[in-house]
């Protein structure tokens, strides 16, 4: 007779507020849910009537952790709605900024939020006393991501100069070269991080999932744009994503559950790796090999390692982009895109997965409808499914409350959920 109750009120070391509730009676899981309890913020209501130029600044405030991602998605969706095609160097700079945000976010997650579990301490602050070098390395890498954003767009949390149509300030050649030097100087720290994760034993757990990420033509490990591609074989243009991804609302969460016709799916570092592993730079491919990653992995805990691989990938890609941008002719003085009616949807990879923004504008360039589908919401059904499987495995092994609780927390953390974003769902109201 197994009776067990796990109630993790206020899941810690994730961004935002969430709870895990599990009730087991007679060895059977009666209830299992990941609650997202953040207060709703009604961005949709707030956006209606605002001029399109303001939208990136408003939607950036959906989430301070992936602010570059939200801003990029908002700019791209707005540009599509306005029928504006930005010059290629604008795209290159956006990629560079995504790289910086990935480095900062993945290091924050890997070293600050996930790592303490592997050392049995409550926080990175405790690690600061026992393993100061590890923490200092992580802090340096995190600062690298921040400093790149500060140099290029003013700051990382709510980037300043990213605008519909381009950048209100174009960085100087020196800025790009300075950023490049900083990244190159971080090579040792990245190597340290790979080594750190090499030494950590990933919990073994088997839970296959359908994996979805953007993939583009060409050779790039794509983050900025492309075709929504599923490991199950589907692919669809970014503005048609709702053809394969459906959403339903569940009563216990202010986020929406997403699924494909096959059921739940996963997005994020591990999914990107699964979809784009053939496009990794050599140094990133080597890191993947050292960390024992495989594109058809069925272990969701491997997301931690996939993030480390992506940090290496993004650093390499960023150096390449710095060279490209330093050599490119800067675009002219920033001009706001002319306002007009239209509708546009864009997908962008953000650290936690694929992010979709869609807007509909009236003739004056004001928002009449907005839609935003965020990665944690897409993952939520899959997280709950994995939790189900994990609790089953742990119960079979006869583990007690504490082990179940820790296992569940670690699993949820491995997905790097960003709950701040999750509650800021906007209305899905696109009828084609």
């Amino acid at each position, binding site marked *: 007779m197994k009776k067990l109750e796990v109630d993790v009120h206020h899941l810690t070391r994730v961004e935002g507020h969430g709870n895990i509730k599990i009730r087991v009676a007679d060895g059977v899981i009666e209830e299992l849910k990941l609650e997202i309890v953040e207060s709703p913020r009604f961005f949709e209501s707030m956006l209606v009537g605002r001029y399109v130029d303001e939208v990136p600044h408003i939607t950036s405030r959906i989430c301070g952790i992936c602010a570059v991602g939200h801003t990029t998605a908002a700019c791209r969706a707005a540009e599509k709605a306005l029928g504006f095609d930005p010059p290629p160097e604008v795209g290159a700079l956006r990629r560079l900024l995504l790289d910086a945000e990935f480095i900062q976010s993945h290091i924050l997650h890997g070293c600050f939020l996930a790592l303490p579990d592997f050392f049995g301490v*409550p926080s990175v602050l405790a690690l600061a006393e026992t393993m100061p070098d590890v923490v200092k390395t992580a802090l340096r890498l995190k600062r690298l991501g921040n400093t790149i954003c500060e140099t290029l767009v003013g700051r990382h949390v709510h980037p300043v100069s990213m605008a519909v149509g381009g950048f209100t300030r174009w960085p100087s050649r020196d800025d790009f070269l300075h950023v490049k030097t900083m990244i190159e100087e971080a090579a040792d720290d990245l190597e340290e991080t790979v080594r750190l994760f090499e030494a950590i034993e990933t919990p073994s757990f088997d839970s296959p999932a359908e994996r979805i990420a953007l993939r583009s033509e060409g050779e790039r490990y794509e983050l900025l744009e492309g075709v929504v591609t599923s490991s199950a074989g589907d692919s669809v243009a970014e503005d048609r994503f709702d053809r394969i991804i459906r959403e339903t*609302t569940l009563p216990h969460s202010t986020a929406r559950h997403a699924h494909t016709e096959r059921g739940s799916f996963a997005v994020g570092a591990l999914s990107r790796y699964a979809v784009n592993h053939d496009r990794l730079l050599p140094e990133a491919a080597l890191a993947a090999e050292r960390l024992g990653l495989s594109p058809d992995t069925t272990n969701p805990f491997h997301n931690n390692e996939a993030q480390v691989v992506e940090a290496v990938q993004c650093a390499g890609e960023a150096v390449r982009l710095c060279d490209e941008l330093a050599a490119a002719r800067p675009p002219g003085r920033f001009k706001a895109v002319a306002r007009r009616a239209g509708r546009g949807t864009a997908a962008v990879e953000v650290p936690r997965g694929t992010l979709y923004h869609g807007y509909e504008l009236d003739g004056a360039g004001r928002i009449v409808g907005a839609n935003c589908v965020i990665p944690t919401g897409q993952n939520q059904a899959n997280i709950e499914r994995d939790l189900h499987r994990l609790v089953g495995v742990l119960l079979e092994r006869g583990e007690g409350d504490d082990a179940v609780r820790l296992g569940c927390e670690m699993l949820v953390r491995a997905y790097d959920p960003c709950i701040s974003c999750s509650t800021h769902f906007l209305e899905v109201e696109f009828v084609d």
Partner: protein
Amino acid sequence: MAGILKPKIGVFSFTGCEGCQLQVLNLENELLDLLERVEIVNFREALTGGTNDYAVALVEGSISTASDERELKEIRRNARLLIAIGACAHTTGLNGMRNGESAKLAWSRVYPDRAFDANVAEEVRPLCEVVDVDFTVPGCPIDRDELLRVLTVILAGGTPRPSTTPVCDECRRAGNECLLDDGRICFGALAPSGCRAVCTSYGESCAACRGHLPGAPVSELMALLEEKGIDREEIILRLGRFGSRERAVAALLEELFPGGRNAQEAAS
């Protein structure tokens, strides 16, 4: 150092984007130095566990639900010093954009298939409208250096002094040309400095995320922008992004949406 009690700090979060908490972690270089002088005992984003034993509470986010309000009052009871960090905590930030519209109506638009959650408050409020706030670090997000300045002054036993000069002063001295001259809507004259004028230095106009100075020249700025031919409605909308809690702005919003935003919707 053993023997010397470090002040205990809790970091708390209500309705917002968590960016200001992240700015605390973003102290990076100074974080370890700071940890030699304080003990962080409560920080959900970074730390498992928590206690009610803290002297200083750093609180981000607005109060937008009944449970937010209860929790904040408890924090106030526990903390000797309560510091609001960020625009959401200070002035509701852009959460306040939803005020002026009924919560139920907003809910039905965003979650059409779910019953209204009675926990959601009709109006989003800044911390100071719920409890006494000892000091505010303004901005969306907060500036790391300003946070450090405030914390070091508090650790020295002093009271931090809020800025009383406008962003314009900092902006000009940074060598920026004035965006108003370009016909842009810029609120630098209204907001207190301390952000290093980072927005205007990066070509984006000031949205007054740091709130308004006492006696901020709202009417002068409105007059000036209108003389430049800028649409009054657009100026008011922009002022409402971060300024919905400022009295002068509330009056302008009332002018734009008589009877609140619902009334207009009902009419149309």
